[in-house]
C-alpha cells in the first residue's frame, strides 16, 4: 500500500488568488493523478501528472488554470490559478503503485473560494 500526504488539508481563499496543493507519496509509484470532487458529486479526473514533463489534461481542464508539476516519482503539485467561487471543491491526489491497478488517495484538499 501507499500513504499519500496532501497539504493543505483545507483553505479559504479570496477570488483571483492562486493556491498550490502539494502531494507526497511514501512509495515508488508509476503514475500520479489529480482529481476534483465538487460538493455532493463524484470524482472528475483533472490530469495525469507526468514526471519531468507536462501533465496530460482531461477535456475541460487546461494548464493555465491548473498547472501541475511532478519533479520526481513521488511528489507532485497542483496549482489552482485565478480562483473563483466555482473552484470551491475537494482536490484529491492519487497514485498507482508499480505492478498494481489500485489507486491510493490522499485525504484531499478542501478549497473554499470567497
Amino acid at each position, binding site marked *: 500500500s501507499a500513504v499519500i500526504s496532501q497539504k493543505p488539508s483545507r483553505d479559504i481563499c479570496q477570488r483571483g488568488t492562486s493556491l498550490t496543493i502539494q502531494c507526497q507519496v511514501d512509495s515508488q509509484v508509476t503514475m500520479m493523478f489529480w482529481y476534483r470532487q465538487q460538493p455532493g458529486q463524484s470524482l472528475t479526473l483533472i490530469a495525469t501528472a507526468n514526471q519531468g514533463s507536462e501533465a496530460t489534461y482531461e477535456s475541460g481542464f487546461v494548464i493555465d488554470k491548473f498547472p501541475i508539476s511532478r519533479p520526481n516519482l513521488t511528489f507532485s503539485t497542483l496549482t489552482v490559478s485565478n480562483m473563483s467561487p466555482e473552484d470551491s471543491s475537494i482536490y484529491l491526489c492519487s497514485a498507482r503503485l508499480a505492478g498494481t491497478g489500485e*489507486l491510493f*488517495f490522499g485525504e*484531499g484538499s478542501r478549497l473554499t473560494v470567497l
Partner: protein
Amino acid sequence: SQQGEEDPQALSIQEGENATMNCSYKTSINNLQWYRQNSGRGLVHLILIRSNEREKHSGRLRVTLDTSKKSSSLLITASRAADTASYFCATESLGGFKTIFGAGTRLFVKA
C-alpha cells in the same frame, strides 16, 4: 467525464441487512474497482476485479463483474452503521492507464 452510472443513487437500510450497489460502464476495461468515501474525506480502496474475473470476495464484500453486460455489483453483507459512506465504482479502460469514476451510491445504515 464519468465512465458510467451507479444505482441506486442512495440506499438506506437497517443494520444487519445486506446492501447491493450496481455499476454500469461504457467501454471495455482492464479492471474495475470499488472505493468507499466517508463524508468529505479521502477514498479507501475496497476491491479490484480484473476483466477476466467474474467474482471476488473480501471479508463482508462480494463483487461481481459481467463484462458482456458491462456491469458490476458490490454486495455488503451484514451491514453495520460504520458502513455508512459513499461507494464509487471506477474503471481502468482497456489499453488505458487512467481511472474514471462513476457517480456513486450513498449508503446509510441505520443502527
